[in-house]
């Protein structure tokens, strides 16, 4: 006789199973709980009935549910999505590595070298270049990417502000990606990439097309391009927000870093913060601007090529602005900051004194005069009466200190032997 399941004493199997399946009415549920508290046997039954996982399933059932290893969800869509993502990532990496990133060393043209472009960077691309403080230069092995919003009308405004420069055979900097709607000129170079972005969230619904060129245009709006017109496209350059607004560009969300804090300075500021972001743009089409590592070199060279080439730190000028050009001869150093102010130092950059403006227009770049050519001097001395005198003149000229040359935005060159007094060449 079973003493466990006397009728009326313990709930029957139907009640217990209904309790485990929550199918009992509330009053019976409470009765069942009350009984289970005091009855360990019924609790054990409930626990046993809950054990539904077989320890060893019958072989026939296992055979009936066996399926090919690849037919399951795990090996179907479960792995398809991450596998596709990984494949896309690998293809993108391979594509970016195969994208031509020409490295040119004629980037001294940003300093308006008119007659003969001279490389200011070392010939070996593997030579490390210290970034100009406070520049935070991305690694050269990777493409620096920035995001900015460009719209057609704003691009026109941007190009309209380019200062006219005398047409010179300027060797352009490296790849800079621009937005569509900028008139394509033959001087711009070869298109190496064209991407399209459609949609837009501000209701415009337009489609923007980005083109990647090997070089910047030589002429803009019927005139020569301002050498610094597209400098803000380079990684690490922050456009002055107020100035950017004046030029029709959308200002960045971040403030001026390393500047004076003033506005309307028409300066480019160097930092590692992106120029703009989506939130600051108001939801417009975002254009990705990409510059290769050589553009970083161009930026560094444009700021302080001589100091960088010599392994020196860029000078800290009294204006607290970054130096566009630093030129040094045997005794003096002349630096031009981004505002066009010229400074002179007689103690190798320890102290700087501003040089009064003696030229017309905006100073763009500095350089040393061409080294003395003995051949030319010898030719000029052919008519000399005394060859010895001619040789002395040659020696005197050879020992002459190279002069400084300053180029303005109108293309006029001014020279100075001491950096203090300037004369038009």
């Amino acid at each position, binding site marked *: 006789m*079973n003493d466990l399941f006397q009728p009326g004493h313990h709930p029957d199997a139907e009640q217990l199973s209904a309790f485990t399946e929550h199918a009992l009415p509330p009053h019976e549920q*409470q009765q069942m709980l009350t009984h289970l508290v*005091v009855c360990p046997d019924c609790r*054990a039954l409930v626990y*046993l009935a809950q054990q539904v996982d077989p320890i*060893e399933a*019958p072989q026939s059932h296992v055979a009936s549910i066996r399926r090919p290893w690849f037919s399951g969800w795990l090996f179907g869509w479960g792995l398809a999505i991450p596998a596709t993502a990984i494949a896309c990532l690998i293809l993108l990496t391979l594509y970016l590595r195969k994208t031509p990133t020409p490295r040119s060393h004629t980037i001294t043209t940003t300093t308006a070298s008119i007659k003969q472009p001279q490389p200011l960077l070392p010939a070996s691309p593997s030579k490390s270049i210290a970034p100009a403080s406070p520049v935070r230069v991305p690694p050269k092995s990777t493409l620096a990417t920035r995001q900015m919003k460009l719209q057609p009308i704003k691009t026109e405004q941007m190009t309209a502000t380019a200062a006219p420069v005398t047409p010179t055979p300027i060797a352009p900097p490296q790849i800079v990606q621009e937005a569509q709607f900028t008139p394509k000129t033959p001087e711009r170079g070869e298109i190496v990439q064209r991407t399209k972005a459609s949609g837009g969230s501000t209701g415009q619904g337009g489609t923007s097309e980005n083109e990647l060129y090997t070089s910047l245009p030589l002429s803009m709006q019927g005139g020569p391009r301002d050498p610094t017109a597209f400098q803000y496209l380079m990684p690490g350059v922050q456009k002055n927000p107020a100035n950017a607004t004046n030029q029709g560009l959308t200002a960045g969300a971040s403030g001026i870093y390393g500047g004076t804090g003033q506005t309307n300075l028409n300066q480019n500021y160097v930092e590692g913060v992106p120029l703009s972001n989506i939130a600051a743009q108001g939801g417009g089409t975002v254009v990705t601007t990409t510059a290769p590592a050589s553009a970083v070199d161009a930026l560094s060279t444009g700021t302080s090529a001589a100091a960088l080439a010599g392994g020196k730190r860029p000078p800290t000028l009294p204006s607290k602005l970054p130096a566009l050009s630093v030129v040094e001869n045997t005794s003096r150093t002349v630096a031009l900051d981004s505002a066009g102010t010229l400074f002179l130092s007689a103690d190798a950059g320890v102290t700087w004194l501003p040089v009064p403006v003696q030229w017309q227009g905006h100073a763009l770049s500095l350089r040393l005069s061409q080294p003395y050519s003995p051949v030319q001097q010898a030719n000029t001395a052919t008519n000399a009466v005394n060859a010895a005198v001619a040789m002395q003149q040659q020696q005197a000229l050879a020992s002459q200190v190279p002069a400084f040359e300053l180029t303005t935005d109108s293309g006029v060159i001014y020279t100075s032997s001491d950096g203090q007094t300037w004369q038009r060449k």
Partner: protein
Amino acid sequence: MDTASSQPGEIILALPCAQPSLASASAAEDDVTLATISGLSPALIEELWPISEAASCGLTQVEFSAALAAVGAKHHYNQPPETRPTSDQQIAFYRALRLSELALAQACALGREPAWQRFFSLYRVPLTQAAIAITGSATLGHDLADSLYAELFGLATSGGERRSPLASYSGRGSLLGWLRTTLAQRHVDHHRRTYRETPLEAIEGSEVAAAPSALITPLTAELDRLTHAVASTLEELPPQDRFLLAAYFLDQQTLLQIAHLLHVHEATVSRKLKRITANLRKQLLRNLQADGLSKRAAEEALGADPRDLEINLRTLLQTSQTQPFSDRAPQVIPAVTNVHATVSNQLPVAK
């Protein structure tokens, strides 16, 4: 008395049923017969009949309606005993039943061949799996399942009449759940029979080892007071809280198992246990103070080393003042197993 027999609410189809002549009777006579026998309206039967798929099991409409009526009367249409169920409540009860499984079970209990074929095709594999899971062995599981098949087929007779436990299935829960519970019952029966056949020395050896610890600890007045306070505190808990404490602390069930049993989330069980133990400690402090102890003395009593105490917590927790199922059976105080549980292991308030 065997477990499988004489369940309290076993449905007895004392009908002139299963007679093929009924099926050939006229429709009007059938309606009158259905209404007379089952008390169900013909419209309701016509509504439930196609859902049940009873015809494919070899069950007639009269047998099906009689089974429905028996189930409704057995469970009082899921209403409390003191209330009188309305017709809407009765209809709602019938519609909530698992009609197809109920029809299958009733047809199997009546020995219909199509029903048994369907039963084997549907439940043979899950029943074997459940038996293996319960016994923890493939061999024992197969044996258990086979013995249940024989029992379900109605090998046992009572007064010359074949009786099947499937007749006690009411259709409130799933038929598979009922089969699992029945398997568990048979497994416990088998375990108990085996346990009773165990040599006496083996049983005494284990009990003798635990006995001295209960005898050497004298019950001091403080321990009496603490035991009384624990008992009164546990009695004040609602049944569900006591079930949680019993399942977690006494039966060593995991939070997940309890959550599956109560159809709540595992985190809910954890939160409830935490709340119950916290409230239990507060109530225990109050009860100790009500017994004359100061607050500091009550806290010191609760802070006593559990190893110095010997409280039969299982007895305290499983002793109930309320009698379940009092409306169906004479009130019998259940026998409490004589298991000594130390406070350090199972008393949550002592932690």
